[in-house]
């Protein structure tokens, strides 16, 4: 921090890539893992390069290595590694500190974690200005406000004095971007910048990054979401198992992918066009469902529930027929999870009623409800949380099979595991030893045990990679076709809901703002909020 950094001029003169690595290898010797196995990548001034891949592909480690943040115990090697026109292989902590923030700003996924909870947003940003000495002290407050305004934060003067927890997720993410760009870096490295955000907020953040790019800042975007990448990037690198399997201009890669993995990734994305076909094996139709007049299994009338003065669910009615899938979409806080819990009889509504098989289901004593519970089962977003940590897979799946002799329970549990595509050998394992996809299969097997008529799925695939998500959605569709189970499918992902649902409810602030056939609602939205939602979804080129 002694001399002003002259990296910027060096780059301008040379007009070479801002950052370039060749044969980047990152390994964690203590864990015996080589996360990145020879990745070459460069970002030119003003360019937007995207790295996409599923979890464990090494995309985040790659991005962090570019800022010298691969973590303690990481061995980073490269045959070439230039940063701001200098060889970064010999960089010490001091050199890296000069690069970070000043030359390259980092935006991470979770702004609540990335911002110091004990400092105001304004202080956080002012610190970047102070450390890199870009703005002298008297002008800093004004500059902070200016920066907050530039990332589209309303009332920047007020917001600068607030703490991260006082801001909404979208505002926090924008504040984080403001601090990343505070020192006016040449390059922004954004690691899953929109993953935790609602779709409309995601659209705002993407627009913000696009604005930055238009202003001449280069962006390196890391994402698992191909559609997010499509809207922003000039070039895409597709990573798998620490290697780049495909690279090229975004349009080309997404519309005519050359590598099989890219093709399977693209095919696995659920959307309106994938309805009725398998996601995990493209162009294979799903089994037909019995159509026609199906009896009503679950009905809710005018449900309302308030927490204090806040109405979590406000006058919601719906019906669900045998073999049907009813999607519930909405952003965080829209009341969709509360609705799911009301349907399950885990909460009782303040007013209104739920009927299961025509009989009153809400507001009855738990003792009366218990014998009927097998008819309606839950599949939740985070299966690991829904498993008793001490139990094995076999025990978890067998638990709801009450009333059967021990041996039959065991046999039935193995049968259920087989049905969801899990090897019987997994029965003796603990869920934490399984992958995310396997865990969700275990949760599905457990839910199928009591032969339910209704499955309430609360964001069942949100935590999964797109290829695993595809397998789980296919599995749900198969089960539905075979058993005629009705699904109440809650999700924030419009693509997923469009793929799997017959009808859909759109929720906002506890109310249903629009409902109907899924194609009608998503193709011809009538309510302005639905229109906003649909418009905010990033699309793959078709």
């Amino acid at each position, binding site marked *: 921090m002694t001399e002003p950094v002259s990296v910027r001029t060096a780059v301008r003169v040379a007009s070479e890539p801002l950052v370039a690595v060749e044969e980047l290898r990152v390994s964690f010797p203590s864990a015996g893992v080589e996360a990145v196995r020879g990745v070459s990548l460069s970002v030119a001034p003003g360019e937007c390069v995207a790295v996409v891949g599923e979890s464990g592909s090494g995309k985040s480690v790659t991005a962090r290595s570019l800022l010298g943040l691969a973590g303690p115990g990481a061995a980073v090697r490269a045959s070439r590694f230039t940063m701001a026109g200098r060889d970064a292989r010999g960089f010490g902590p001091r050199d890296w500190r000069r690069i970070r923030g000043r030359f390259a700003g980092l935006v991470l996924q979770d702004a609540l974690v990335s911002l110091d909870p004990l400092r105001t947003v304004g202080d956080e940003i002012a610190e970047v200005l102070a450390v890199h000495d870009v703005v002298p002290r008297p002008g800093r407050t004004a500059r902070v406000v200016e920066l907050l305004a530039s990332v589209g934060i309303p009332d920047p003067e007020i917001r600068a004095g607030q703490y991260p927890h006082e801001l909404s997720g979208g505002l926090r993410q924008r504040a984080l971007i403001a601090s990343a760009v505070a020192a006016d870096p040449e390059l922004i490295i954004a690691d899953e910048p929109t993953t935790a955000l609602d779709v409309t907020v995601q659209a705002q953040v993407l627009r913000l990054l696009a604005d930055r790019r238009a202003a001449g800042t280069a962006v390196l975007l890391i994402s698992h979401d191909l559609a997010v990448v499509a809207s922003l990037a000039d070039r895409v690198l597709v990573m798998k198992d620490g290697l780049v399997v495909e690279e090229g201009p975004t349009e080309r890669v997404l519309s005519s992918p050359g590598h099989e993995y890219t093709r399977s990734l693209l095919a696995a994305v659920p959307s309106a066009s994938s309805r009725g076909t398998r996601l995990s094996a493209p162009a294979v139709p799903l089994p037909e469902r019995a159509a026609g007049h199906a009896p009503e299994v679950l009905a809710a009338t005018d449900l309302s529930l308030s927490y204090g003065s806040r109405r979590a669910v406000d006058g919601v009615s719906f019906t669900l027929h045998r073999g049907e899938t009813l999607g519930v979409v909405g952003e965080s806080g829209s009341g969709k999870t509360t609705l799911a819990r009301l349907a399950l009889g885990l909460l009782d509504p303040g007013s209104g009623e739920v009927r299961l098989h025509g009989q009153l289901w809400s507001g009855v004593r738990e003792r009366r409800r218990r014998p009927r519970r097998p008819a309606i089962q839950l599949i939740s977003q985070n299966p690991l949380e*829904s498993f*008793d*940590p001490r139990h094995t897979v076999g025990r978890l799946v067998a638990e*709801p099979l009450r009333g059967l002799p021990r041996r039959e329970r065991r046999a039935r549990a193995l049968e259920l595991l087989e049905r969801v595509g899990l090897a019987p050998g997994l029965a003796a394992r603990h869920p934490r030893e399984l992958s995310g996809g396997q865990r969700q299969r275990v949760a599905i097997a457990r839910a199928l045990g009591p032969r339910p008529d209704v499955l309430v799925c609360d964001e069942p695939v949100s935590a999964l990679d797109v290829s695993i998500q595809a397998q789980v959605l296919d599995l749900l569709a198969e089960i539905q076709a075979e058993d005629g189970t009705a699904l109440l499918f809650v999700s924030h992902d419009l693509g997923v809901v469009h793929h799997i649902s017959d009808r859909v409810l759109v929720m906002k602030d506890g109310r249903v703002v629009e409902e109907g056939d899924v194609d009608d609602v998503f193709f011809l939205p009538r309510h302005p909020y639905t229109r906003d939602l649909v418009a905010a979804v990033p699309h793959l080129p078709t």
Partner: protein
Amino acid sequence: MTTAAVAAAVTRRPYRPRPGAVLAGLFLTLLAVAVVAPGLVTGVDPLAADPLRALAPPGPEHWLGTDHLGRDVLARIVYGARHSLSIGVLATGLAVTAGVLLGLAAGLSHRWVDEALARSFDVLSTFPELLLALLVIAITGPGTGNVILAIGIAQIPNYARVIRAQTFVVRRAGYVEQAVTSGLPRAAITARHVLPNVLGPIPVLATIGLGQGVIAASGLSFLGMGPQPPAAEWGAMLSEARNYLRVAWWVALFPGMAITLTVVCLTVIGRRLQRRFEGRTP
């Protein structure tokens, strides 16, 4: 000890025994032997009085000297371990059992029941442990059984509060909710899912609590509330020795050291367990 603790917390290596923990473990093993079969540790009768050799200093014949009645101090300490430790263990067992049940009841009950129980834990824990134990003795009268009861009651809030807090977390856990949707009866959910998952911190707490129990037991015996003479009990030994402190330091020092070492070793092991299991599901 402190630096070792900090270093261990920071580095988090795979298990490697530390000298302190090993020594503590050895001492406690020896103590366990003394409790189960004191004859293996010393061949001397702790009650054999020999007035001619009263207050003999430590020497080759009596390693730790003799007391005012000429009884071997070492033998009395070895045999006394049974009294002191069994009071500690039984009192801790009582406190853990009652504490877990009450904590669980509070955590699962309706709000006003919970409030009533929680406030009573608070009231109990405002009394110093020993004072509360004395209060119980004042009602029940002295004696080994009553000392166990007194110390046990005094320690209940330590466990009940932790279990209550754990229960609040576990009863809202996804797997409990899942058990409800599976149609499991309340008792089955409590026994199978709630209880086992709230017990995590208990082994650690109980190890440390055991040390406190031993101190309390000795303290009450010192005051003459515990096992009655001529039974060898560390606190009672201290009490008898206090009249001879000037002429025979060994009569008081060695029982005192036995108490101190026991408590220190239990605490070392307890902290060690705590560090190993902190933040992990059992």
